[in-house]
């Protein structure tokens, strides 16, 4: 059974149809990439999955359960974590503090106006684990806003991981990054996928990332599904080539 299933969702903003009758099925442990030119509706599609806004029609199922009507914040509790195209972090807090918010939320402490020593220690341990996993230990006490782009993205992923999600949704994790940083973040995603078997869905522009990481790829253009398949199938698909590079007349 698929972990995430999207059944013919459509999203219209007024007269503009941003996503048109798109379906998707992600198996447990799969790393799925969504690609397509700018404005193809990828982020809108992502926002529908994570509950940022409701679809105009269609259904979204997590683990067989219809979550179309579930609020974004509750989807997080059901095991869905995401990152954003433009890094969404708490820039004036340190890396450790950023992760702490996520860890505490995950530990169900978010309503607690006090915290005892034992819990603090537990939280600290988890934060350290996240720092190790994302190789941010050395930057732990720096303000996130002062870090390099790649480290900021790693921190954002660390926050998502701290939620112990069942599925991780990454929106252009390497957008705006240098060569080295792209490699760093791609490496992190790959380690995550390989060593924990995380189910990951990512939107990506950098084809090296996509082709090196993805198990399967779906291609969107103009809000509709253009193609779906393994990296090799997609690479060989002329329609995809055209969509990406344009056609010389």
């Amino acid at each position: 059974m698929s972990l995430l299933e999207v059944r013919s969702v459509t999203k219209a903003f007024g007269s503009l149809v941003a996503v048109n009758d798109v379906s998707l099925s992600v198996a447990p442990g799969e790393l799925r990439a969504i690609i397509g030119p700018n404005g193809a509706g990828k982020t809108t599609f992502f926002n529908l999955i994570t509950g940022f806004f409701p679809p105009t029609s269609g259904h979204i199922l997590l683990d067989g359960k219809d979550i179309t009507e579930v609020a974004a914040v509750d989807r997080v509790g059901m095991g869905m974590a995401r990152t954003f195209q433009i890094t969404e972090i708490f820039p004036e807090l340190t890396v450790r503090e950023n992760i702490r918010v996520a860890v505490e939320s995950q530990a169900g402490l978010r309503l607690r106006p006090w915290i005892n020593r034992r819990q603090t220690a537990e939280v600290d341990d988890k934060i350290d684990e996240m720092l190790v996993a994302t190789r941010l230990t050395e930057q732990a006490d720096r303000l996130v806003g002062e870090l390099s782009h790649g480290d900021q993205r790693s921190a954002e992923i660390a926050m998502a991981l701290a939620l112990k999600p069942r599925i991780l949704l990454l929106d252009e994790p390497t957008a705006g990054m240098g060569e080295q940083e792209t490699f760093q973040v791609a490496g992190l995603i790959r380690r995550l996928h390989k060593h924990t078997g995380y189910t990951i869905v990512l939107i990506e522009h950098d084809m090296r990332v996509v082709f090196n990481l993805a198990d399967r790829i779906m291609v969107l253009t103009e809000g509709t599904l253009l193609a779906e398949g393994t990296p090799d199938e997609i690479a060989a698909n002329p329609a995809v080539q055209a969509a990406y590079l344009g056609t010389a007349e």
Partner: protein
Amino acid sequence: MSETTIPAMADRTQQRNWLPLAAIWLVLITVPIWLPYVGGYNALASRVLVFGLAAMGLNLLLGFTGTMSFGHAAYFGLGAYGAGFVLRYWIHSTPLAMLAAILLGTAAGALFGALMAKRTGIYFAMLTIAFAQICYYVAYSWNSVTGGYDGLRGFQRAPLHFGPYIVNIRDNGVLFYYFVLAVFAICTGLMAMLLRSPLGRSFIAIRENPRRTRFLGIPVERHVWISFTISAFFTSVAGGLYALLNNFADPTALFYVISGNIVIMAVMGGMRSFWGPLIGAAVFVTLQDYISSMTVNWMSFIGMIFVAVVLFFPRGLLGFIGRRRRA
């Protein structure tokens, strides 16, 4: 909130230099000793603490949750009336008066907060004014209970009883100051604890980035509501103290001008720092007191100070200092 800010999370507060903290408490504890020498008087010091507490309470919402309220006079004023009702109609007990202040102010905060939590920005701010003004008009119109425009009068704060010991805060201004200071200390202690707790961190997270916070599984609206309620709680404590200080409660305490004053104290002092609002309140209250004795044109002076703070201290008075210390 686009400004770079001074975060106040546990990791750094723990490493913080304890000296400024000790200095603040030393100054506050010794007030009755040095105050007369600089031309002050105990009621003024109590007033500074009362408004300082109100402004710090508001700042939990404004500076640490990033949500604007123009209507905190409601919780301040209801706190004052709550205390007044108990002393006037029921029983001569200062602790019960404070309890009533807290219950009335916090309940109103929780109720109004629940009605507003889904609104944002200017709509939220205007709703806070609206609810406060409605409280104002109720207090103003309900003569038989509140005394209307003339206020609720004819009560006095009661001495405190600790078993056989009686602390006469009614007649002794110094003792009353220490009573206010004790309450202030408890409240600021609670605030500091809150800001180091997971709940407090979620508030700061909302201030920093509501969208990220939501996608960490924290229901933003509910937490804004909680923050609003807690903020109303502290402000209502201040309101209760205000009634005890004046032996009086009147609708002006609910008026939007008071809300504005509380916001201004917080902003002027530095809304991103824990103690900033207290500094703002101290500057505002003492300047107003001093200048208004010297010239009937005191409003111009206060106004010019506001303008100067905006133009020359972009982070508020304490924010400026804090910034330099960090740099």
